[in-house]
C-alpha cells in the first residue's frame, strides 16, 4: 500500500535527490502541500503582476506605495481580506453559499494533482493525466453555478449561467486542440506527452502547421475557460457588478480569487506541457529534476503574462460573438487540425 502511494506520488525522485530517506512520510506531505504553497505565492505575485502590467500598458505606474515598487500591495490586500467581516446575505441559500467557494477551489487544487512539475515530480502521473486535467475543471463549473444560485442575486446568477455556458462550450475546442497533440504523442499521461517532445525545439509547437493552429485554438479556448478578457462576460464589472462573486466578501472572496489565478496558471501549464515541451528545456533536452521545475514554471509564467497582456489589449466579447467564435470558428478549425494531424501521422 505504501509503495502504491509513493509510486503514485511520482515525486519520489526529487526528494531522494534531496537526500530524504525512502518511505518517510515527508513524501506525500510535500506532494500535497507544495502545490498549495505555490498557488498562494503565485496568486500574490500574479495579482501584483497583473496590476503592474495593466498599469504599464496604460502608461501608469500601478501600486507604488506599499514596499519597494509596491511589492507588498497584494500581501496588504490579503491581510485586509482576512480581517473583513464574513457576510452572508440574508436571502442567500446558506449551505450553497458556503460550499461554492470551497468547491471552486477544490477543482483548482485537484487539477494540480496531475500537474507535471518535473520529470520526477508529478503529484500523480496518471495514465489519463491530460484527460483528468480537462475533466476536473468541471468541478469549477458546478461551483460557479452553486455560487450564482446560492447568492440569490440576479447579477450572480447571470454571471454563473454565462460562465457555465462559456466553459462548457469552450471545453470542446480546447479538448480537440489537445487531442490534435495527443494524436502525435500517442499517450494521455502528462509525463509521457512531455517525454515524447524530447529533442524538439519548443516542443510540438513547430512540428506541423496543424499543431501550431491547435496551440492557438487551445490558447483562445483556455482564456475562455478561466473567464479572462476578452471572455470575461461572467464577471463583467460594467454590467454584472462582479458576476458570480458579487455577494462574496472576506475569505470566501479570497478563495474565488485564488482559484481564478490558480486556474490561469493551470491552463498555461497544460498549454506548456502539451505544446511547448513542459519541463524540457526549450531546446529539447531533459534537465535535472530541479531545473525541470524551474523551466516548467518559467514557461507557464510566460503564458500567464500573455493572458494579462491580452486582457489589457482586447475589449470584451458580446454573448453572440462569443458563441459564434466557439461554434463556428474554433470548433471547425480544431476538427480540421485534428483530421489533418491524424493524416500526417498516418501517411508521413
Amino acid at each position: 500500500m505504501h509503495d502504491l502511494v509513493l509510486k503514485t506520488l511520482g515525486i519520489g525522485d526529487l526528494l531522494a535527490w534531496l537526500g530524504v530517506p525512502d518511505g518517510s512520510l515527508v513524501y506525500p506531505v510535500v506532494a500535497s502541500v507544495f502545490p498549495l504553497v505555490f498557488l498562494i505565492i503565485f496568486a500574490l505575485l500574479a495579482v501584483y503582476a497583473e496590476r503592474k502590467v495593466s498599469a504599464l500598458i496604460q502608461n501608469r505606474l500601478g501600486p507604488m506605495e506599499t514596499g519597494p515598487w509596491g511589492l507588498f500591495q497584494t500581501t496588504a490586500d490579503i491581510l485586509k481580506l482576512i480581517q473583513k467581516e464574513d457576510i452572508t446575505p440574508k436571502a442567500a441559500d446558506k449551505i450553497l453559499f458556503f460550499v461554492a467557494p470551497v468547491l471552486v477551489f477544490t477543482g483548482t487544487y485537484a487539477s494540480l494533482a496531475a500537474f507535471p512539475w518535473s520529470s520526477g515530480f508529478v503529484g500523480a502521473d496518471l495514465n489519463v493525466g491530460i484527460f483528468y486535467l480537462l475533466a476536473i475543471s468541471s468541478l469549477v463549473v458546478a461551483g460557479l453555478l452553486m455560487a450564482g444560485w446560492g447568492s440569490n442575486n440576479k447579477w450572480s446568477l447571470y454571471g454563473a449561467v454565462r460562465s457555465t455556458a462559456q466553459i462548457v462550450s469552450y471545453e470542446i475546442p480546447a479538448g480537440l486542440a489537445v487531442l490534435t497533440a495527443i494524436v502525435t504523442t500517442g499517450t494521455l499521461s502528462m509525463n509521457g506527452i512531455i517525454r515524447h517532445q524530447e529533442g524538439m525545439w519548443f516542443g510540438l509547437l513547430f512540428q506541423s502547421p496543424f499543431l501550431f493552429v491547435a496551440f492557438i485554438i487551445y490558447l483562445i479556448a483556455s482564456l475562455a475557460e478561466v473567464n479572462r478578457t476578452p471572455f470575461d462576460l461572467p464577471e463583467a464589472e460594467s454590467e454584472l457588478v462582479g458576476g458570480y462573486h458579487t455577494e462574496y466578501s472576506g475569505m470566501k472572496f479570497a478563495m474565488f480569487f485564488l482559484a481564478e489565478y490558480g486556474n490561469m496558471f493551470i491552463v498555461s501549464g497544460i498549454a506548456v506541457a502539451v505544446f511547448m515541451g513542459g519541463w524540457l528545456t526549450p531546446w529539447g533536452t531533459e534537465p535535472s529534476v530541479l531545473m525541470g521545475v524551474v523551466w516548467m514554471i518559467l514557461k507557464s509564467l510566460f503564458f500567464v503574462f500573455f493572458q494579462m497582456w491580452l486582457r489589457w489589449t482586447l475589449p470584451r466579447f458580446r454573448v453572440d460573438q462569443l458563441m459564434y467564435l466557439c461554434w463556428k470558428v474554433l470548433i471547425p478549425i480544431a476538427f480540421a487540425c485534428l483530421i489533418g494531424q491524424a493524416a500526417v501521422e498516418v501517411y508521413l
Partner: protein
Amino acid sequence: MEVAIFWLLAVIIIASAAATVFSKNIIYSAFSLLFSFLGVAGIYAMLSADFLAVTQIMVYVGGILTLILFGVMLTNRITMMSLKTDVFNFIPGLTIAAVMLAGLLYVIWVTGTWASDSPAAWDTTVETIGTLTITRFLLPFEVVAILLLIAVVGASFIARKDKQKIQS
C-alpha cells in the same frame, strides 16, 4: 487505508444519493447528485478504471449535471415549488425495484467470479478501450454516435425559431 477510503466514498455516495431523493428542494437534489457522481468516480479510480473514472467526471459532472442545473435554473417555476416526496404508486414501484434487483443479482450470480485481489494496479486501460471501441464494439459505438447526432439535430430543430416568423 484503501479500506478507509472505500468506506468514505461509500458514505459520500449513499448520503448524497439519499439527499438527492429525499430533499424537498430541487436545487439541493441536483447539487447532491454532484457528490454522488464524484464518489462513484472515486470508486472507479480505486478499481483501476482510471479512464472510466475521468470519463464519469467529464460526462456526468461536466455535462449532464450542468445540463440538469441549467434546466432547473432557467425554469423559474420549478425552483419555487417544494417537491412532494410522499410515496406514490407504492406497489408498482416496489415491484419494479424488486425485479431490477433480482435481475442484477442473477447476472452477478451467473457471471460468477468476483476478483478477490485488486486488479493489476495502474495498467493503462485507455489503449484497450480505444482498440475495442473501433474493433469489436464498432457497431454499438457508431449507433450511439448516430443517436446523439439525431438528438442534436432534433434539439436544434425544436429550439429554432419559425422561419416564417423571422421573415415577418
